[in-house]
């Protein structure tokens, strides 16, 4: 109950953020120059065709009415028709979302699984060779453009070593036999009972997920290292050492647990960063996810789809931050959540 009370200001803040975002996206999609109907049909469409589509899209109503229509549509998940696929946008998004979630989830797992141990190792070897090597790696990882690392991975592991496929989610010979159940390829291939197809799905997933994870991995390494170093100097850690507890136990049970709080905060932000990064990675690897759909909707000025994708990502971002807040509150109720600071 107490926790709920603490989280209420955060929830209302979230709602306002999302409303604000809807206004922003609406403004971008309707008020800025250019007629969406004209853009959708291209320069060669006749004026009548444009006028007909414009009235179909409700573009000749007053702006306030358009916004109300748009927001009430958003609330019930009616995002209109996509101009590129002619399907309801919501259907498209639901269809494409699992591919993106699969990609960014594995990416997040890689980030944490590689980043946290490296950060701990660096902190344990402060000033030593391992620390410096990790430092250079972390700096490089945050500085490398994701499309560049994606291409380098493709060239090395795809072309030269020929270890992994470089585009798509599944090879053609399996894709006929796998029926879509959940949309998550790793799960669908298991449901189909095909080990070979499952392995093939992993092989497709590993390079894009790795390419996507670099930037965040660098940040996790740095934040883990610096919070481990901070914690090491604390009395209770000194006391645990003095107590004669084994070094590994102190490091992993006491230091890391406390050092994890700043890391967790960063992980929430990184999730959003991954959604942005996916826009690049999905293009490079031909990954048929939400981000690729978003980029295509930008390039074909598919306004409804663009609004849908942007709002979905905004919603996911806000929700993730909320979940991180709930977890942080559980771990340490003394933490002031960002929303309560006055």
């Amino acid at each position, binding site marked *: 109950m107490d926790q709920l009370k603490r989280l209420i200001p955060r929830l209302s*803040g979230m709602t*306002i*953020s*999302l409303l*604000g*975002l809807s206004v*922003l*996206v609406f403004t*971008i*999609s309707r008020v*800025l*120059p*250019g007629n969406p109907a004209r853009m959708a049909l291209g320069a060669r469409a006749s004026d009548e065709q444009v006028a007909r589509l414009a009235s179909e899209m409700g573009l000749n109503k007053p702006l306030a009415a358009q916004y109300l229509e748009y927001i009430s549509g958003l609330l019930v998940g009616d995002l209109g028709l996509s101009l590129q696929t002619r399907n309801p946008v919501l259907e498209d998004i639901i269809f494409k979302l699992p591919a993106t979630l699969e990609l960014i989830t594995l990416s997040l797992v890689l980030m944490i699984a590689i980043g946290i141990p490296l950060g701990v190792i660096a902190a344990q070897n402060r000033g030593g060779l391992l620390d410096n090597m990790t*430092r*250079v790696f972390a*700096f*490089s990882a*945050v*500085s*490398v*453009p*994701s*499309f*560049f690392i994606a*291409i*380098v991975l*493709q*060239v090395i592991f795809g*072309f*030269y070593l020929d270890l992994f496929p470089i585009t798509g989610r599944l090879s053609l010979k399996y894709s006929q036999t796998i029926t879509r159940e959940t949309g998550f390829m790793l799960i669908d291939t298991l449901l189909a009972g095909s080990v070979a197809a499952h392995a093939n799905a992993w092989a497709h997933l590993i390079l894009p997920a790795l390419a996507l994870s670099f930037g965040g991995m660098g*940040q996790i390494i740095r934040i883990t290292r610096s919070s481990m170093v901070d914690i090491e100097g604390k009395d209770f850690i000194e006391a645990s050492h003095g107590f004669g507890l084994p070094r590994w136990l102190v490091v992993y049970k006491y230091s890391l647990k406390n050092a994890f709080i700043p890391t967790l905060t960063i992980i929430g932000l990184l999730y*959003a*960063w991954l*959604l*942005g*990064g996916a*826009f*690049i990675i999905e*293009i*490079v690897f031909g990954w048929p996810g939400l981000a690729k759909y*978003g*980029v295509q909707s*930008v*390039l074909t*000025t598919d306004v409804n789809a*663009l609004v849908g*994708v*942007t709002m979905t*990502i*905004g919603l996911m*971002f*806000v929700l993730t931050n909320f979940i991180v807040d709930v977890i942080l509150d559980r771990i340490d109720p003394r933490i002031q959540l960002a929303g309560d600071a006055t």
Partner: protein
Amino acid sequence: MSTDTSTLDRIVSPAQRELWYRSYRRFADQPMSVVGAVIVASVITLALLAPYIAPYPEHVGSYTDFANSFAAPSLDHPFGTDKAGRDLLTRVIYGYRLSLLLAGTVLGIGVPIGVFLGLVAGYSGGWIDAAIMRLTDTFLALPPLVLALAIASVFEPTLEIAIFAVASLWWTWYARLTRGLAASERSKEYVQAAELAGAGRLHVMLREILPNCLSPLLVKMTLDAGIVILTGASLSFIGLGVQPPRPGLGTMVASGTNFLPQQWWVSIFPGFAIFVLVLGFNMLGDGLRDMFDVEVEQ
């Protein structure tokens, strides 16, 4: 009696100099900071002197020399040539110009707006603070690249639109940072003294509080320059930034992806060039952070 206070001592007290020297040592003792500073300084020099340094300045635009198409890296063309036979080293040097232009303009527009809103929010408090912070939270509710993409999509894609798109959301980080700094300075004695002396709100914000927020802002700007360059390059890579034949670094990487892996140099060198510059800004920014001893979230 000898005059043992030199002119220098009269201008800057020895204690002050000692402080500066220690800050400088904190910076210089970290080899990576120095490397970062050298990279950033070299790239800026290259970009400024591009017309004199680049081996083939005429290759910057829509020049073609198909006889030289896809020449592999050699002494004549250290980075090779692209499909149109243009020297890639030349185009990378000119690409740096566009990247630095992007970073400079985005920060030049975004920082003053953000800093001013942050000062107003942090110094005023109350509903003004709440309103401004709600606005920034809204912008921060999306990954920057996605928002820039949405904004860039309504216009014809060009470098200028990419700059506008990135700048229109980059102010938010500065609003947040400055608000926090201003809110903590507000209750300090020097601010109260200025208020009691009858200074106006604008004077207190700009002349009293702002000077005390400069080092975190400088650190943040250095670290951000790299991120802005990455964001701009990503927009160009997707096709929503610099358009060919202009030599955007991200644009060049994208145009080379069709020729992998045989003509690898078309993508790899421009991509590596972005990496080096961003790395330079990050290492420099990190060194400055140690030097000023400030906490800045990235």
